[in-house]
């Protein structure tokens, strides 16, 4: 047991997979010689060589397409797409091929691949590099989407992702790599579709994932001073979605705010909100609140960008406005 960063947790998961399963190999831009744009693959090329740590051209469609083919042929590719924004270039490969092949082949073909990618804004990278698009992929049947918020979950979910027989989008938030957390030495894995109650409370439920969990926890600390006990539910995976944990919490608190860094309009937060209204209407003390990214392309200006993303103050005031507490 020791405290490590989320970055190191992911690296550990990759190393472990490379060590234990010879079918596993990595592909991506700048993951080898450059040691990874976010340094997640640091040292791997030296250790595992060019066969298994493959630097690719800047052509995401080709990279993902090659991985789909490799997975179909029996390998277990782990692709790194530098940011989720670039995954748009591989949309056809992801949505029309990786997600569909098992179904269109009547189960004759499996696509056991992981696409690791970096999501989230708030780092002044401009409108085209600051998006949170994991929710888009979570709406596609045939894909699985994990979005860890801490090192423990990152390693546990990555193990499950690599072992999964279907394509998984593994969204690592750019601003969580330095987050520290205890990770046990003993092997463990976190099954998909199991949310985690990060903080228990009776008064209001904050549903979040990835970096939103930290925003929600900040809000919970503020609320605690006001005498309001928030329960923070970390979804951990968007697809499959653990509706039971969310609904159990909502049935207890009757109040819920969904925190989502993605755009509010059609965002994954809207799906969660709708799911709650459909299943827990008679437990609600008011409409489900959403604190989401503003419906604008991410501003470059740091102050403006920050104001376009959910923060603790917005969560607190949403609770006041919607529930009067």
């Amino acid at each position: 047991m020791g405290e490590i960063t989320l970055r190191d947790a992911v690296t550990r998961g990759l190393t472990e997979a490379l060590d234990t399963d010879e079918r596993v190999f990595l592909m991506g831009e700048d993951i080898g010689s450059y040691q990874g744009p976010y340094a997640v693959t640091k040292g791997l090329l030296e250790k595992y060589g060019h066969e298994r740590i493959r630097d690719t051209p800047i052509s995401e469609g080709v990279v993902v397409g090659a991985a789909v083919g490799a997975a179909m042929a029996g390998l277990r590719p782990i692709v790194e797409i530098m940011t989720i924004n670039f995954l748009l270039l591989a949309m056809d490969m992801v949505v029309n091929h990786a997600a569909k092949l098992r179904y269109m082949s009547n189960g004759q073909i499996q696509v056991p691949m992981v696409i690791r990618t970096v999501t989230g804004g708030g780092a002044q990278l401009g409108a085209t590099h600051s998006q949170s698009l994991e929710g888009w992929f979570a709406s596609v049947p045939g894909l699985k989407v994990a979005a860890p918020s801490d090192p423990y979950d990152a390693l546990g979910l990555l193990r499950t992702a690599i072992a999964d027989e279907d394509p998984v989008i593994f969204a690592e938030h750019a601003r969580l790599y330095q987050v520290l957390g205890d990770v046990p030495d003993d092997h463990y894995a976190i099954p998909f579709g199991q949310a985690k109650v990060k903080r228990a409370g009776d008064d209001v439920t904050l549903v979040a994932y990835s970096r939103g969990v930290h925003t929600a926890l900040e809000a919970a600390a503020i609320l605690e001073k006001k005498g309001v006990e928030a329960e923070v539910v970390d979804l951990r995976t968007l697809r499959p979605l653990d509706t039971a944990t969310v609904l159990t919490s909502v049935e207890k608190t009757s109040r819920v705010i969904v925190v989502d860094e993605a755009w509010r309009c059609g965002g994954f937060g809207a799906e969660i909100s709708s799911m709650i209204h459909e299943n827990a209407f008679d437990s609600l003390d008011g409409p489900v609140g959403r604190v989401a990214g503003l419906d604008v392309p991410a501003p470059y200006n740091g102050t403006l960008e920050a104001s376009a993303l959910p923060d603790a103050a917005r969560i607190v005031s949403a609770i006041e406005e919607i529930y009067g507490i």
Partner: protein
Amino acid sequence: MPQMGYDMLEGTVVRWLMTEGSEVNIGDALAEIETDKAVVEFEASESGLLRKILVAEGATVPVGHVLAIVGDADEDISAPENGDASPAYAPEPAPAEEPPEEEPAIPLPPPAGAAATEEPAAGGLRASPVARRLADERAIDLRQIQGTGPGGRVTKNDVLNFEPDDAPAVVPEKPAEAPPAPVEAPSEAAGELVPMSRVRQQIARVTAKSKREAPHFYVSAEIDMTRAMDLRKQINTTLESEGVRVSVNDMIIRACAEALKGFPNLNSYYTDNGIQMNDGINIGIAIAGEQGLILPAIMESGTMSLAEIAKASKDLVERATKGTLHPREYTGGTFAVSNLGMFDVTSFIAIIQPPQSAVLAVGTVAPRPIADGDEIKVASMMTATISADHRVTDGAESAQFLVVVKKMLEDPMSLLV
């Protein structure tokens, strides 16, 4: 279910006095209805056949709920009975603050299944889904609860904190810094939890509402009742053969009724739109019944002689005991007198019964030493305290009113004029 009293929210059908198919004339008693205060007869407002009884005996339904259908033999009565805009009966108009919404019927034990028509609360009342569910589970009428959520929405906490024995939940307008302390269930060692009678519940609701909304102030006066007591003795001797017996309270009522003519503000009530004057003077008298206090009024006391008041008050007390007061007598009071003189207490202050603006509380009449010029003498003294609603009147006006009452009682021949 007709509205038969201020703040009446629901009523229980005790007994049907007619069966389906009976011929009904206007004014015929159809059923006995138990309200918060008494059992009263429910009279037909239309003639025809009692086509259908919709609420079983023993069932409690909200005001506005259709109890039965009276119509012609061949009339189509398949229209929806409850929730219909034109129900077959004509309830007295409900106060504006209590729109006759349909609420799920609440059967009393033994539950009358026939009455348990489940209807969702109609629009107008804002309550969250969980508040509606909890209120339904606990058989709480949401209209009794003051919502504290955004837009006045009744919230989960409003329902959880609502105690029917504690009047409408009083919750601060602004959320407190700390959440309200959890309502702890009384521990088993605390003793028995006694369910409240309807009358008790009503008293709780009305007095708390009054104290919460009407800023009370109080003015007291000592009244020398020596001459009034003498006059009373004379009158009672004179009228003995007629069976009339005037009480001290009757004299106080007479004095108040006369005095109110000069102080219309004390015979009015506050509304958000203005001060509503009452045309008549109907003085309510506090009667301690077996189950609690009721405050029926002597209608048109302002036009009555002392002897008439004496007869009317005696009749009122008798009918209150039997539970056959007319609903109008419950609701029609415009001023009230509360007298605890029989208990040998000096003075007390009373709570105004909405929608009234004042109540006079009187203690016992007892010999007391008083200063008469430079001399000390013994007189039959009584302390009277008026509680008045500061929204409609001020201390000076109430003091002047009290002085008029005092002068009339101290010069009691004026009571006979």
